[in-house]
């Protein structure tokens, strides 16, 4: 059991947990993820590590309520326990002094981008961060991102904060004025694909972090396989970060949507004991 030390609502349906797990906090590095299970009959879901505090022995995860498990998880309080927490899984981000780097985070993708930007900054890079969301209510951590970036730029679809538009609109402008060595882009699949298409002709190395469906998270089941160039890779042990120019994003998107109907069914069953849809509670 892993105690929730802090719970914070970061925006509409976006929740942060700080969880007590000292050994995990000691070993966690930017780019890695954990697998969480909250009930005996619960599923195992992967979540990227948004932060870690080695002194206090906590790790931070941020999630959006989208399915049954994340909805159930959002009902947990400070002091409650997470049943199972496994990690740190996956390969950490390769931190080095590259020169000028751009860190792009879209939606809940801001969470995993934060520790990467921080470590890149600490390694001496000039870090330009671009974060975005549909609207202000869904955008979090601008202050924290600003602290670890030389420059922070913000985009929202509706312009409620920052520039109106997509992170890619801002990124295009940054590409024109900066000599970029490497880019990290984490967020919705369409965003990552769009960034990859912008940097491909310029041959700017671009790293994306994939979050496919997983079961064990240790290489045992192969559920998380992704097509990277000619090769099939397991995101859990070979990733989650991959070269954006080699990832088959369409395939990855379709694999992510495989259980959509089941997810809907699970959600209906959960939200209503009378067959679903009546919003009785």
């Amino acid at each position: 059991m892993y105690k929730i030390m802090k719970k914070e609502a970061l925006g509409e349906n976006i929740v942060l947990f700080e969880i007590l797990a000292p050994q995990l906090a000691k070993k966690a590095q930017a780019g890695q993820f954990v697998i969480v299970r909250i009930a005996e009959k619960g599923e195992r879901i992967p979540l990227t590590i948004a932060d870690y505090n080695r002194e206090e022995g906590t790790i931070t995860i941020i999630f959006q309520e989208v399915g049954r498990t994340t909805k159930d998880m959002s009902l947990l309080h400070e002091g409650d326990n997470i049943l199972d927490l496994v990690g740190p899984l996956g390969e950490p981000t390769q931190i080095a002094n590259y020169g000028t780097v751009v860190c792009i985070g879209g939606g809940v993708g801001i969470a995993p981008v934060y520790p990467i930007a921080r470590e890149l900054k600490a390694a001496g890079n000039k870090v330009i961060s671009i974060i975005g969301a549909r609207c202000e209510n869904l955008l979090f951590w601008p202050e924290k991102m600003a602290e670890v970036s030389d420059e922070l730029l913000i985009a929202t679809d509706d312009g409620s904060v920052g520039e109106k538009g997509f992170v890619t609109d801002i990124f295009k402008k940054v590409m024109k004025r900066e000599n970029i060595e490497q880019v990290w882009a984490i967020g919705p699949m369409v965003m990552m694909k769009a960034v990859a298409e912008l940097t491909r002709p310029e041959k700017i190395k671009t790293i994306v972090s994939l979050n496919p469906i997983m079961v064990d998270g240790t290489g045992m089941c192969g559920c998380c396989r992704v097509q990277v160039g000619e090769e099939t890779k397991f995101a859990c042990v070979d990733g989650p970060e991959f070269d954006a120019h080699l990832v088959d994003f369409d395939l990855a998107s379709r694999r992510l949507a495989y259980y959509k109907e089941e997810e809907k069914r699970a959600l209906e069953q959960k939200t209503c004991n009378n067959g679903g849809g009546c919003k009785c509670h």
Partner: protein
Amino acid sequence: MPLKVPRNSMPTQEPQERINNFKEVALGYELEIAKKEAERCLQCKRPFCKEGCPVEVDIPEFIQALKEDDMQKAIDIIRTKNSLPAVCGRVCPQENQCEMKCVLSKKGEAVAIGRLERFVADWEAEHGRNTEEKIKSNGKKVAIVGAGPAGLTCAGDLAKMGYEVTVFEALHTPGGVLMYGIPEFRLPKAVVKREIEYIESLGVKFENNSVVGKLYDIEELFELGFQSIFIGTGAGLPYFMNIPGENLNGVYSANEFLTRTNLMSAYDFPNSSTPIKVGKKVAIVGAGNVAIDAARTALRLGAEESYIVYRRSRAEMPARLEEIEHAEEEGVKFLLLTSPIKINDDGTGTVKSMTCIRYELGEPDQSGRRSPVAIENSEFTMEIDNIIMAIGQGPNPLIPSSTPNLQTNQKGNIVTLNEDGLTSIEGVYAGGDIVTGAATVILAMGAGKKAARAIDKYLTKQS
């Protein structure tokens, strides 16, 4: 006792009934049948059966106790050598081990040693364990990595010798392949849980959710005060065929398909929140025990047709005969001398059909089996909803990749320097599938047993 007395058959659930449930297929002997079967044992002066048992169970002795109606004594005899008798009695390939060596098998049918072992273990489960092992702690700490058959056996044996044993398990529950791989209808999870409770009763501690290689590395385990380490992390990396379309939705590795069903209870979705998708027609590529388990599981999950697709012929199928027969009774179909070369998309990223090629058998290969040769222009396409790859597994890479001085072979298996399982690092032993490549539960248990003995010798010498 005349040799002609036939072996007592195992009562089973009727095929038509059992394909609609996940309950155990083999129901187990009743007391009278068990005693009748025990009577068949000749109590040989030189019992060859024992030589066939990788964990050295005193077979004639426990059968004698059973014959004398002293079940407590029978289980105590088994338990001194085997910490998982209810598991072994169900899933060991006895026909290649103890029962193959039984003298009765020379002229007729072997004593049903496995069924008797199961009977005795189940008797204990029903009546409760009455014997308490007298264990005196020697204060020495040993870490076991992986709570599968090898690790559990090693842990149990070391605990009985007085060691303080901690087992580090990556998943949320111990048991390894016994929990995630072997289906409920062949090995009920309640049985596995009881065996683990027994090992806990010996003082063994379990640290679940602990991926060694990530949360701790081998060096850190020594720093934590463990004086010796056993690695039994198994064959945890499924192989795929590398054919086009293999990453389409609807293609599962057998590991994923079975893990969703067994460990995560996907058959109970949405009460259990892990889903699984099974269409009307399911093809399993491969013909080992794992493939047969997947084929039978698919039927229970609602598939109308379940095919074993195998590129050799029936005689070369590696699965246990008993399992193949059970699968046939349940309606699993066998598409032999056939293998897929391409998986076709329905246009939305999901499997629609598979294109296969036919084979004929040529000369025997290195394994002694006649090797399949593709027949030209024999391609055909069949509609299919799911394809499950059960063509074997490689070693899990997490420990080797995080332990630089741990020697591995080309395939990534840990190299052991001797029969005891000693690795290239002093005090670190390994056994089971991580060393041998995918094999059986009982061979892994045998390796765990040998390593426990070697660890004891090593730590005794040190003090």
